[in-house]
């Protein structure tokens, strides 16, 4: 197999940072299509364990909650390409729990007032990598995107998160926000964060924020002063980051299955 260039940053930046693209062998079995017709309301839950290329269309006034869990041991290449019609809503929950994953998520907010919300969580341990390229392309008027990413890197895990909000001509009244909160647990981790905003419209509001590093010292002290030992505090806070996203799935069986993968047992916290 030949290597394919994936996860191309919508506008390239300094080459030496190694964030402009990724090269990897891929073996997409084919394209999968998910289509939610006008006015419908769906939830789809997928455990992604092989290379996957999924096209999503959310029709007028339709809603889709798409849950994707990448938890295979070796990881995979996965793509989601979603198009949102007028007043369409896509809530994407995507979790990366191990392996070497390359993942691309493109949401085209084509319809007026279309709404895209992404909750991205990861817990990456020894030798795990994640290269994630996410873009919310605002074409429709008053379209809204909310991107929340966060998780924890342990041992020698490496992660790249590229998140782009692209306000294109015609997207007046659009709003986009993006946040990433990364906890680094060990000295050998490598984290790269590239939060891009591209803007060709005046009447838009865009924001992004990132926080990378240790758990806040004030939080650690506060919890310690109540008698909780340090290791337990780290455990609680890192779990809470993921648990927050997992709880949004709202499907008990799936949630339990994910807790089992994470080895959390019955008790989440």
């Amino acid at each position, binding site marked *: 197999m030949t290597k394919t260039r994936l996860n191309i940053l919508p506008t390239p930046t300094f080459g030496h940072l190694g964030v402009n693209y990724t090269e990897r062998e891929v073996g997409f079995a084919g394209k999968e299509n998910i289509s939610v017709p006008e006015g419908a309301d769906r939830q789809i839950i997928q455990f992604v364990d092989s290379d996957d290329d999924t096209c999503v269309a959310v029709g007028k006034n339709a809603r889709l909650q798409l849950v994707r869990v990448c938890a295979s041991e070796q990881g995979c290449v996965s793509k989601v390409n979603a198009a949102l019609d007028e007043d369409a809503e896509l809530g994407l929950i995507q979790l990366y729990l191990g392996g070497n994953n390359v993942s691309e998520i493109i949401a085209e907010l084509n319809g007026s007032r279309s709404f895209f919300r992404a909750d991205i969580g990861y817990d990456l341990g020894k030798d795990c990598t994640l290269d994630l390229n996410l873009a919310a392309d605002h074409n429709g008027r008053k379209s809204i995107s909310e991107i929340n990413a966060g998780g924890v890197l342990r041992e020698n895990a490496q992660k790249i998160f590229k998140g782009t909000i692209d306000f294109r001509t015609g997207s007046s009244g659009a709003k986009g926000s993006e946040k990433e909160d990364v906890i680094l647990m060990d000295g050998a981790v490598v984290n790269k964060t590239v939060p891009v905003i591209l803007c060709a419209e005046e009447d838009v509001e865009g924001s992004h924020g990132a926080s990378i590093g240790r758990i806040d010292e004030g939080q650690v002290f506060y919890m310690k*002063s109540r*008698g909780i030992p340090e290791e337990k505090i780290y455990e609680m806070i890192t779990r809470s980051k993921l648990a927050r996203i997992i709880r949004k799935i709202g499907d008990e069986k799936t949630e339990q299955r994910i807790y089992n993968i994470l080895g959390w047992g019955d008790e989440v916290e």
Partner: protein
Amino acid sequence: MSELLNVTGLHTSADGKEILHGVSLTIEESSTHVIMGPNGAGKSTLGSAIIGSPEYTVTSGSITFRGEDITGLTPDKRAKLGIFLSFQNPVEIPGITLSSFLRSAYENVTGERIKLFDFKKKLKAAMDVLNMDSAYAERELNVGFSGGEKKKAEILQLLVLRPKLAILDETDSGLDVDAVKTVSAGIKAYREQTGGSLLIITHNTKILEALTVDRTHIIADGRITAEGGAELIDEITANGFDKYIGR
């Protein structure tokens, strides 16, 4: 009465600047002490130093609790021994609910596992004392809480964790009349239920009305400049600190 806390010749500094210049203080079991003093005198620093805040370095002196030298202990060990600090500005911890946090703290402090159901019962009882809506238990710790709600949440933790010494740092500041009443009721309940000691850092005498104060300490410029009984509070209320500033 036997001795609970003993602070001897405590010097602390932050960012290389000394704040406490040799503070000594003894608190007996089941007693109520009050610390008063002008702004920036070092009152909060003393409270933080007793629980072991990493912000302050103890440069000399010692702190013993129930006969054990705790000067070098981490805050969680001190909490386990029975010290509690009610923070002036409790931090927000997103993602962790008040209930799960407090349950974890409870298990660590007491050293015993508690069933979720039993814990919820305990929590509910404490919340009733403070007229707190039980929905607070499932909210993220301090996140989006108003000033008054944060203070109530601190007292709630006090009631659940039942420490031997509770240090209340300006717990009454910024509260309206009703909230002061609620918080006072909580403090009173703590005293009655546990017989633990109190070290109250305050500007305001309202919160003391329902309590019997055993001893008052005045701190000015990082030193204890006067000590006395409850009558000292009245004197300060009437005449201010001027007399106790400087040497």
